[in-house]
């Protein structure tokens, strides 16, 4: 049985090391996915945590103040002030009304300081129901289903 003891010890060392590597410092590597209303709900818990928050860029809210770009993310009437402090230029898709994902931390002053911003525009032919002119119906993808 002695040799199985050796194997067991080696396996335990390997598995233990992997577990140790996986758990040590895992908290610094975690980032929370939140929508704007969810972030609001977190309250004081949110401070200091690495958070990715998603929402729509409020029309007319984008301002440049020195090196910072400030804007408001909005979802379901809940708003969040965001300041972008990163060095990379903002994506071309970052515009009024775009969906944006800000990566950073919420500061005590209620402003979300983002290190990176990802943004996505609504694509060309996917018209939102609200954008249609009166008398026009939404393209119904399913009604043409053959068979």
């Amino acid at each position, binding site marked *: 049985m002695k*040799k*199985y003891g*050796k*194997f067991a010890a*080696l*396996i335990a060392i*390997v*598995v233990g*090391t*992997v577990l140790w*590597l*996986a758990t*040590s*410092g*895992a908290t*610094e*590597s*975690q*980032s*929370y*996915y*939140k*929508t704007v209303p969810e972030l609001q709900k977190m309250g004081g818990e949110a401070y200091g945590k*690495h958070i*990715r928050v*998603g929402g729509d860029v409020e029309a007319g809210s984008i301002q*440049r103040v020195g090196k910072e*770009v400030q804007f408001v993310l909005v979802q379901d009437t809940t708003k969040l002030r965001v300041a972008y402090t990163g*060095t*990379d*230029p*903002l*994506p*071309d*898709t970052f515009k009024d009304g775009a969906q944006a*994902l800000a990566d950073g931390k919420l500061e005590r002053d209620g402003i979300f300081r983002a290190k990176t911003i990802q943004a996505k*525009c609504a*694509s*060309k*032919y*996917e018209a939102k129901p609200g954008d249609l002119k009166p008398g026009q*119906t939404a*393209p*119904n*993808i*399913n*009604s*043409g*289903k*053959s*068979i």
Partner: protein
Amino acid sequence: MENLGALAILLAFCVALYATFASVIGRLKAKPFLVVSGERAVYSVWALVTLASGILVYSLITSDFRFAYVAEHSNRTMPMLYKYAAWWGGQEGSLLFWSFLLSTYASVVVFTNRRKHRDMMPWVVGVITTIQTFFLVLNNFVANPFQMLATDKLIVAVPDGNGLSPLLQYPAMAIHPPMLYLGYVGFSIPFAFAIGSLITKQPGDGWIHTTRRWTLVTWLFQSTGVMLGMAWAYHVLGWGGYWGWDPVENASVLPWISGTAFLHSVMMQEKKGMMKVWNIVLVSTTFFLCILGTFLTRSGVVQSVHAFARSEVGKYFVSFLALGIAATLYLILDRLEYLKSEAELESVISRESSFLFNNLILLASCFAVLWGTLFPVISEAATGNKISLDADWYNRLMVPIGLFLLLLTGVGPLFAWRRTSVESLRRNFQYPGIASLVLVGALAAAGVRHPYALISLGFCLFVALTVIMEFYKGAKAIAAKNNFNLLHATAELTQRNTRRYGGYLVHMGIVLMFVGFTGHAFNQAEVKELNKGDTMQVGVYTLRMTDLQQGENENYAWHRATMDVTKNGEPLGTLEPEKRFYKASRQGTSEVGIRQRPNEDLYLNFGGMSDDNQRAVIQAYVFPLVMWIWIGGLVLIGGTLICLVPSKVKMQYARTEVVGYTTQHATVKK
């Protein structure tokens, strides 16, 4: 036309379902006609799915924008190559592509085994057609590629489509998904054979011999796919990396890792009759990871903020995975007795043991990556918070694991079976060990302080030397015996045992890739806003912007900088990083300017225009040794191809089995 396509996949679904039942019932009731009709049904499924695929591709290349799929993934101005590539550019099309590949593989399997494995084949066909049926359910009822755009029940065409995501409009990207899918789908075949052999309790390891080539070819496709993905990320995404532990990347590498473990541990079964349960578990794991990978890449479960419950295909994939895994587990547990090992582990320093640890480490890393990838889903279920883990977490975990594997790559193949003598350890490892210690010492003296980089380069040299010594020793013996020169002898040596020496070459490829990965420790980066005539400095290079232009064509608008590169005053040419903004999809892409050399790459990205729209933001990087990743990848592909060539000398593996003991010598009666 669209009706014909839709009809074809509906019929294919019915026929695939029939094939499953015909094969299984035919086998159980011993009705050969049913079994044969099941096999013919496999061919019909192929014909029907091919017809449907043909119609979809035809509508893509003729820009028939009445098709919702075409409108979403193609447009008029796209080059022809990408119109074909749009077949796998979106969810509906790529699932149809899955079905197409699976039915093609299935037909090949049925054809090549038409006179072999008669006992097991009905089950193999049954398993494959079950998988086929699942995908055809998705094709027909969940993600139908033949949906038409309509207004008030009238089918209409939109004037132009969205176009394929511009990030995908890159040649490597047009072949990257097919490669990965060929790999993903391919593992269905060894899995089906494993299950077939389990159900019929086949003696021996027929399923492994039959599917060895399949597994290798599939693994080759997967490796190529993963590497093309890396090359694409490096050349197109503009952030200068090749691997970011993104869920989609993880999805592609997970089955590759478990597949690698499988390729190694089957050798244990072939030679020693060990690890039989383990091999079945591994091939099943790999197959289910392939399904999971398809699911992750196609449904967007992990990357978007809250998509898990919403994803339409998600429910189907999760149910299929749950049922499949449960059924496989039941089968394995039910047949444990028949999978008993024929030999035991003897010594910690032996080939068996190195395979054991290779498998342990590969599986641990596979589990770790899976855990990290699914962590948002797990944490949401456990705590209600969707939490993701960043690339640092993966690196902290995977770098040491990778280094340990690299070391095993070198020592494992040189350990003897059963146990290894101290003398043979000394003989095999003395010179490589000394040489790599010298290298590490020299590098440390030269000022390299990064511990992982030192370890990695040391191990790389060690493994490379052991591989070279193996070739040299074998070739020298052949050269002396046959009076060949050394080069000829090396070729002869490789031909005699392609599996072994091809395997060494694959290991060499891995070593070269690690050399490339190690370069990451010495990356340099600079960002600067430049106007015409301005200069910047990165590493040893001086960059001067000689021109800044913009323009547009029908597909995209662009900004381009022309940068003169000099090193110590000596001109090295110009690089032209470019930023594009595609009109149809409203997405931006980067066309980076790279000067690739074996020692280091100079990598320029056009970050964008400055806030006042006057200057260009140039991100300049120096990435040492990156080229070795691509070279290593090619060596790996070459090595795998050599493994696939049959050996000149037919090798029969002699099992070392203990049949019984004799207490006294038999005396021969006179």
